[in-house]
């Protein structure tokens, strides 16, 4: 069952392409608008720049240590206890991200089509698939993603192109202050920082010399696509963007409502969202498993699977399933945990990169 083989440059790039959409194309644009108006898009640009910085850091690390495990690397630099703490925090952070992503998707679908469905139906649809993918390993996820990639790209290009028809002129920009943009960025820090996934799988990633451009190109394309979705959404709904919480769906819905002709094209966005959500949840879950293995190396995989499912079902059944609650939790607690992505992991990597160098120099 467990097929832990490596992924190549294309699969890495495609996984990054998919991950850059996680938690960014549904609720986030609407929240950014309510906090920073049209300038909310600069928060996305700023956070993507940080994300790109992490990717460059990963590149440097991978070039220097092509086959080392992240766990080993951190352990060598900081010792066993610190490594366990870092892995514990990463596991909690990704569990939080899974809950956020799952609930936003659940609310999206229950609001729009499956009004009377309960959480258990959604769990029945999601849990088996993401568990299966995560247990099969990163190579299985990568290869499956590779199969779906052309369809995802076509749907994405189509959606953005159609969304352009809904753009309205005559809006006042420059309404928010710089401080609003900074606050919006900090509040939604947890929706970004997915590049650290690569650090956790770094021993499973095999990128040949000259193939890095594939990873960078696909990452760049994904970032530009997310920015295009946010921009089209803002320019379609203008001053009422904050009243529409499901951005990617809303841009197609806007064209459907006001220009007709193409029929229910908004269904395309639902297919796109469900497909991406499966992959994103599977990758997050895989990260959780990796962290669990790091924390309890002697325990069998079945324990990590049971632990995750038990906690996940418990939280989603009793704690959340309410958009305002999830957003509150996403804005209030997760940003602090995002320090793992933007501070702790990069710090570990920098120490590993330069600390070793210093040691070598001393020798």
């Amino acid at each position: 069952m467990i097929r832990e083989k490596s992924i190549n440059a294309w699969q890495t790039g495609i996984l990054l392409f998919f991950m850059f959409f996680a938690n960014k194309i549904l609720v986030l644009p609407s929240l950014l608008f309510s906090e920073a108006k049209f300038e909310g898009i600069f928060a996305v640009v700023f956070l993507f720049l940080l994300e790109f910085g992490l990717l460059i850091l990963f590149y440097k690390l991978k070039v220097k240590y092509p086959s080392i495990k992240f766990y080993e690397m951190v352990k060598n630099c900081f010792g066993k206890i610190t490594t366990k703490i870092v892995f514990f925090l990463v596991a909690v952070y990704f569990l939080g991200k899974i809950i956020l992503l799952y609930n936003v998707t659940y609310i999206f679908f229950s609001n729009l089509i499956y009004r009377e469905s309960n959480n258990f139906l959604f769990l029945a649809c999601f849990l088996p698939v993401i568990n299966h993918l995560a247990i099969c390993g990163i190579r299985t996820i990568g290869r499956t993603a590779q199969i779906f990639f052309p369809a995802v790209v076509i749907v994405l290009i189509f959606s953005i192109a159609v969304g352009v028809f809904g753009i309205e002129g005559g809006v006042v920009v420059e309404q928010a202050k710089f401080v609003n943009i900074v606050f919006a960025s900090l509040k939604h820090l947890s929706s970004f920082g997915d590049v650290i996934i690569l650090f956790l799988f770094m021993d499973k990633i095999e990128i040949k010399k000259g193939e890095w451009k594939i990873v960078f190109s696909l990452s760049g394309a994904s970032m530009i696509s997310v920015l295009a979705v946010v921009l089209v959404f803002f320019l379609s709904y203008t001053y009422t963007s904050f009243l529409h919480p499901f951005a990617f769906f809303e841009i197609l819905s806007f064209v459907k409502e006001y220009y007709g002709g193409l029929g229910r094209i908004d269904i395309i966005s639902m297919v796109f969202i469900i497909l991406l959500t499966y992959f994103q949840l599977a990758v997050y879950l895989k990260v959780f498993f990796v962290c669990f293995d790091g924390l309890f190396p002697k325990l069998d995989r079945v324990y990590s699977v049971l632990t995750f499912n038990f906690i996940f079902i418990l939280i989603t059944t009793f704690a959340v399933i309410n958009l305002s609650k999830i957003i509150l939790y996403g804005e209030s607690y997760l940003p602090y945990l995002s320090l793992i992505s933007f501070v702790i992991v990069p710090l570990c990597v920098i120490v590993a990169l330069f600390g070793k160098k210093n040691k070598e120099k001393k020798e």
Partner: protein
Amino acid sequence: MKHFFKKIWQTPMFLIFVLIGLFYGIPSLGNPAEINRFAIVTAVGIDKAEQEDFDYEVSLLTFVPVPEQTFTEFYKVISASGNSIEEALDYAGLYTGRQVGLSHIKTIVLSEDLFDEDVTKVLDYLMRDKEVSSSTKLIAMDGKAKDFLNAVKDLDSQSSYSVSEIVAYNEHYIYATGCSLEAFFKGYFSPTKASIVPVFSLQSGDDEGISTENGGGGGEQTSSGGSGGKSGGQGGRQIVNNGDAIVFKNGEKQKDISGDDIVKINYFRGEFKTGGITIEDFNGEPFGKASLSFDISGKKLRNKVVFENGIPTIYTDIKFTVTLSEVEQEDEQFNKDVDLYNVTKNETSQIEKQIKREMAEALEIMREAKTDVANFYTLMYNTDKKSFKRFLDSLDDKEDYLRYTLFKTSVRVHSK
């Protein structure tokens, strides 16, 4: 067979798929059909409640789907009161014995007694409800919304002619204006805080008007012409869509605008696709004291802002392409095909003068009402933010910026 089951047993995903099918598929077959649970609402009317205990009365133009061989739907108007829109809708559900299905709403009608207060309070629930489409048309009623829906009831039941379609075409013509729920809130949240909503009214059937009556009482009546259109309803009442509108500012009624004035304002708004321009008493070859009607087949509107000495000047350049469509002469019939007639300079300059005069009147209307329904604010702000802010700061009343803005209009009319 044994091998088959062994293979299935080794594929846990298949087993899970079967389990999901058993748990969710089979019970769903026993669920009653949605058409048996929902009352389908196509229009909502909101009035102030007559009872003191409640704030609002909500009327729903609804039909219950029943299987039959024709496409006719039998509508009913159901009213319920509540302290909020949601509460009133719940009560309406109680009265029908069905769940109120809002996803088919195409029109929201606001009663005139709501206009003294902020109407966004009334519309808030409908705007935020995910079932109600943001493209739902919003109309204001010169009277009670409930009466309007009662008049519409027969129109929708007995013909394929629907009131939502009448409103949909409002945006198409220069004579009227349309407003969706989304457009209303966009205006409300924009810097101008202004939204423009079309007004419908009801007239008794024996009133003077240009209408054709088909069939018995409450049958279909349609008409169009001049500046108004009427559609028949219950007890001979007619729905009148003259192109009249109300400007809302900060959600409250700011000004009534007549259909004639809407035409003038629409020159600046430029959202229409077609319409006509009529010149009365035109004297000049080959016509003699004629009334000439021209069809607008194309238009191009361009605005440019220049700040001169801190005062914004808006240069509006409009190009119209027109074709002669109708000639009414006192003495004799015009003996040429209008399609082959080439509109002369003399006629186009007459049209230009008329449009210029009407645009000046439109500006006066907007200035008086202090409402910028043409969204000049955004144009000025985006052209030169600093200068515009300085200009606004120099005014005693910042809302009155249109009065101190200079306008220079250039109208060019071409023959097709």
